[in-house]
């Protein structure tokens, strides 16, 4: 009996050894390798939002200093290509790769100089800027320059984090939709907006208009903020004189996740002390504004523990016509945070006003601005770690292209006291690769 059992066990082990050791090693499971297909994506037309508008009333209405509107509104558009823009439902589109729209409203509620770069639609846009607090209006303009309707979802973030209400709307082909965000969620002193769109996407911008009593406190466009990163630069902040007529500057920071942020102020003389901006703790979805200490035109460096978004807000003042009206009339400008240190080339179309470039580079480098045909218009040696402002004396309508890694923005000043900024944008050709593999579809 024992012998039989042992014999059986021995036979089992023998077969076992045969099966496991001698059996052919199978081929490893082979998943079909994805095929990489390079695709040259078709270019999309760009869209401009069109004229500024007063939240209530019309620009051209009203009388005198009580009137909300203004006569003598000058609006200009400069494209990088040669084609003429096509009007579309309030705004206009163009097949150029880039354009600048600039408008000067001399008086009324939305008096100010406002400019923006007109961009191609995208499926996700972050707009860091604007406010829906008392006296502020954030007008969201969504333009769809393509032939396919797009479904848009707008989410708002404020000082307390993400706002529960969100907007959903559809923007038809070749059309524009406008929404006043203070109608969705009023009282957000600091505002960040996220616009998600299907199909080709939409071009989303916000018209940020503020009133100080009856006096205009600044109007500017907030455009798409591309700089989601842990290390950002905001060139073109300031000058900031909070106690005088000059105006103040703030840095707005938005963090999708809990993060710790440190800000550094770099002026023409180098790093300026800013103790209040060390180690700021942000909760997820929170938007905060930090006032910049008095400085001239500077750059703010933002360092965070997680990818965040940042933008700079600068106001400037001018004396009112009637001293009884108040201290100063103000104009504002928004500059987006950038991470141009990635090294691609960025372009801007220069309008016809007095334009200067505010430049910052952590290392000594040369700022070379050329147009698409290759002609170099401006060359400037940039010292390391200091902000420089140089005038750009180029004909209006010129497209300037600068290769990184340099952080820069274009500052437009129309004295007395009208300012705005234009962000340089990356409009290089987009060549994507698509990875494709066969699969088995099971619902």
């Amino acid at each position, binding site marked *: *009996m024992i012998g039989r059992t042992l014999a059986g066990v021995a036979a089992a082990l023998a077969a076992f050894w045969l099966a496991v050791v001698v059996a052919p090693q199978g081929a490893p499971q082979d998943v079909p390798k994805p095929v990489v297909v390079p695709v040259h994506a078709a270019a999309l037309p760009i869209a401009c939002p069109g004229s500024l508008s007063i939240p209530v009333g019309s620009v051209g209405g009203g009388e005198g200093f009580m009137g909300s509107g203004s006569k003598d509104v000058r609006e200009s558009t400069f494209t990088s290509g040669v084609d003429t823009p096509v009007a579309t439902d309030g705004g206009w589109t163009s097949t150029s790769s880039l354009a600048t729209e600039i408008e000067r409203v001399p008086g009324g509620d939305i008096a100010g100089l406002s400019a923006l770069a007109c961009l191609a639609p995208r499926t996700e846009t972050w707009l860091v800027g604007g406010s829906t607090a008392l006296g502020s209006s954030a007008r969201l303009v969504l333009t769809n320059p393509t032939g396919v309707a797009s479904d848009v979802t707008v989410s708002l973030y404020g000082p307390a984090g993400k706002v529960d209400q969100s907007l959903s709307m559809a923007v038809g082909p070749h059309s524009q939709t406008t929404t006043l965000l203070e109608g969705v969620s009023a009282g957000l002193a600091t505002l960040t907006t996220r616009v998600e769109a299907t199909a080709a996407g939409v071009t989303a911008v916000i018209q940020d208009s503020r009133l100080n009593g009856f006096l205009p406190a600044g109007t500017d466009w907030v455009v798409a903020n591309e700089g989601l990163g842990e290390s950002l630069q905001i060139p073109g902040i300031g000058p900031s004189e909070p106690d005088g007529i000059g105006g103040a500057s703030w840095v707005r920071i938005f963090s999708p996740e809990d993060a710790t942020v440190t800000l550094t102020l770099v002026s023409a003389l180098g790093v300026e002390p800013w103790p209040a901006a060390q180690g700021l703790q942000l909760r997820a979805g929170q938007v905060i504004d930090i006032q910049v200490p008095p400085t001239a035109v500077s750059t703010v460096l933002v360092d965070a523990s997680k990818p965040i978004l940042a933008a700079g807000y600068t106001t400037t003042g001018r004396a009112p016509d009637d001293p009884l009206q108040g201290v100063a009339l103000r104009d504002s400008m928004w500059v987006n945070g950038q991470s141009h240190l990635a090294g691609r080339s960025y372009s801007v179309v220069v309008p016809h006003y007095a334009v200067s470039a505010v430049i910052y580079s952590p290392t000594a480098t040369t700022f070379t601005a050329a147009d698409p045909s290759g002609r170099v218009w401006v060359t400037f040696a940039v010292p390391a770690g200091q902000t420089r402002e140089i005038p750009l004396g180029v004909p209006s309508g010129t497209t300037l292209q600068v290769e990184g890694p340099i952080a820069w923005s274009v500052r437009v000043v129309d004295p007395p006291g009208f300012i705005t900024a234009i962000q340089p944008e990356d409009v290089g050709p987009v060549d994507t690769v698509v990875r494709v593999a066969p699969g088995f579809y099971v619902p």
Partner: protein
Amino acid sequence: MSPTTPFVRALVVTHGRPEFLAETLASLAAQSRPVDSAFVVVCGRALEDDDDIIVPPGLAVEIVHVKGSTFGKAVDGLLEEVEEREGEWLWLLHDDSAPAPDALEHLLAQAAKRRLAGIVGAAQVRWEDSTRLVNIGTTVSRRGARRLSLAEGDDLDQGQHYEMEDVLAVGLAGAIVTRGVWKRLGGTDPAYGRFGDSADFCRRAWRAGYDVVIAPRARVRHAQASLAHRATPADAGGDARATHASRRAAEWYHAIAWSPVWLGPALFAWCVASSLTRATLRLTSSDLRLVAAELRVPLILWARSGRLPASRLAIRRVSKGGERVEDPLLATAGDVFRFLRTRELGAFEAWRAESRPSDFQHRELASLATRRRWTLGGLAVFMLAISLALFGTWYAPLARGEALVGAALGTTHVSTAELWLRVFTGWSDAGLGSGSLDGSFAALMLPFSLVPGGLGMGIGLLLLLSPLLAALSAWFAAGAATRSLVARTLAAVLWGVWPALIQSVSDGRVGAVIVHLLLPLFALAVARSIGIERRDRLADGAIFPPSRLGSPSAAAVASLALAVITVASPVLLLPLVLAVVVVALSSTVHWRFALTIPLPAVVLQGPALAAAWHGWGTAGWFSPLVREDGPALASAPASGWDLLWGVAQHPPVWPGFPGAGTVVLTYGAGVLLVAAALAALASGRSAGAVASGWALALAGLAVAAVSERTVAVVAGPDGRSVANGWAGPGLSLLGLGLLCAACAAAPPGWTPGVAWRARPLRAVGGGLVIGVLAVYVGGAVWPGRAFGGDVHPSVPTVLPLVATLEQRSQPISRSLVLWQDEAGLVKYTVEATDGSTTLTGRGATTWPAAPVGGTGTSVLAPAIGLLAGVGDGASDLLVAWGISTVVVAPGSPALESQLLRSPELSLIGASDLGRSWRVKTDDGVPVARAWIQTDLGERVPLSSTPVGLTESIPAAASGRVILAVPADARWSATLDGRALSPTEADGRQAFALGGGSGGGVLRVGYYDSAYRAWWWAGVVALLWAVASSIPLHDRRFGRQSP
């Protein structure tokens, strides 16, 4: 006729059987009324030496050699040399017909009584037993060819026929015939050969105006040596089957010769039909010799038909005035029916009487049967509860009309028509279409698709109820190894909750599930076929049934089961065939039947065997033999240690008792079984069965290890990834072997009068086993326990309705389905129907198959990349392959956004099942899977089916017929019957339409001749097995083995 004394001339015709002849001559010499003259007519070269003939003293015999080989010719030959005497009666005897001493007396008495009698026949009785009748006259049916003997076979001669006189025909052996009749009729008709001449002779005698009577008291012992091929009296019984074909052919010849001329062809057709039917019936009684004999009948009839005019002439010559005087003696249909019924029922009753138990045994058997039935009922209820506890969440969705889907299954909602197309043509429509190795898996799915609710319901019920079905099959199989109810129940429960089975069900591996359900039945059928199943032991020590009878129909059932098992899992072909051969050769009973068991399985795997043979020596030559044709999924190979305990994949953690509980859940069943089998080995009972069980288990282990480590799913034209085999079938075989060993040595069941307390060891052991099994079953059905697989019920429609409508409406086209995973990889599949399935088996372009990604849908990758990246130029490639719609599955919003921007697609719908686009064509012509491309660049779409088209085309300019399938030599096209030459169009199949072709009917079709040949072979083998498995035993020939 004549008042003078009759002169009896005895003629003994011999074909060379000296022992019979001696006895015949001896009985001739012993006649009470001696013969007046006796001759021994030696036919041909039958007996070379006259000294072999032992002539008894007192009998004056003259030995004559004649040339004729048949009885009639021999007699004719003799009569030429002998002069006629007045009142001469010829007494015709064979060398194996020995008359009783008073035979001649009774014959002459009858002849004297009936003056008009030309032929007086004797009652033929058995050589060995003269109380049993062989022939007391025959008749034939009116139109057909049935020859009825007026005596029931093997009837006891008790004088019940003594009043019989007029009969249609008598057997000429032992009959007396007047010489005048013989002369007048010209002897027997040579066309009948050795059989059937008596009937024709006697019937012609009736027509000529003579009477044919029988003298029932005259007995002649007839050994039927020619009929039964008996050479000596010692040959017991002989075998009547040897001459069956000739006898039947003679009966048909008689029918045709005696019917009007115009009925001849109809009767011949009837003969052919009848022989086919009879051959099938012989098949069901597994009588292969008679099958061949029945099929030979029409051929022999055809060979003899040249002599019909002569036979008819002979009949007409003697018929007086066309009267059919013998009509009243012919058998009516009622007579035929009664004859058959008596014969068949009599044989059945005789067979049953042999194995009837006594009354006391009957009561005990009845009580055993009652206990068995109650236990089976309880087991069924228990296992049904287990099935519902395991998979019960599927029941309500299935009843609602949903179907099971899974990563391995695909969709199960496949129509019977689609399955049949796949089976019959061998064309697999997966991906861009391809041929296939064989259609056996789809054929296996056909019965499931006939269930009300379709294949989805059939597969759903199969998977849902698999523990119950497995337990039932194990119950019946265990009954062949042990009669103990406890052992059977434990075996059944263990088999029903076998871990590999539950894993296979939750993965959706239908093939492995079917193997697990059928293996015990296969083992049972093999055991029954060679008669080694265990029998009930009764209280008085008797065993019932008393004799071991092998069953040919069980062998046929085993062959069917083996065929289905190998279709579901081809890797088991070799081990099971080896096992059957070993078992067959080791058995002394019916080993021939057992050797036929592997035949249908081998025929069905023929294509795979041929493919392996062709690929001998190249890499992966054996992959056709280990392939998994149906649902398959890659799995991590289990370690050898796990395989030993029957674990193919570790189950997820047991929520109730993680840690130790999970270990028990994983290994419990395997350890229990191995321990039981080891105990069986140690006990020493039923050593042979235990040893063979262990051998089978080791074979199963080897199969499991091999199949896990080899590639079972090669890259196919649908682009699915390569996968290794599943160890489930091998582990089922392992379990079967161990169960066989454990059950064979199980202690005998309830013995009346012996309490369980008297055997403490056995009781403790049984309790331990039951305890472990209970823990294991409890863990298996623990609520909230996950199985690790992904089979779940889902709505049967996979694609949006607009896409399937485009696919199905003429001209038919395909859909491209896209989705994106988290890593941004765009995945695609091409569908010709609503959803892809693996239940139809895999397509393959070549075997061993082409390398990964080399064929099939990967040609579309550039177009898909362009679509997803919003580039240009994708639609040309899509249209070229007959893709008319693009569907983006739900859950890929980025991909949807990209496609919304594409200028080459137009959105046609959005639903829960995805968004659908139509591919825009430059010329506005709808996309089709077959079209005519003229040289001017126009596309003319054609209505088609997946395997071909028939359409009239107008007079066309020159161009090509293009099919959106990969180029394959098995496609052919004809225009008005004229073959078109095949060409290639960028990898697609095309045919050149010559210029000025003038239109006509265009026929395009796919035909795989090798596939068709194997298909017919498989169908014939299966039908053979099915017919043989009907349990009709041919009991008439009384071949019962001890």
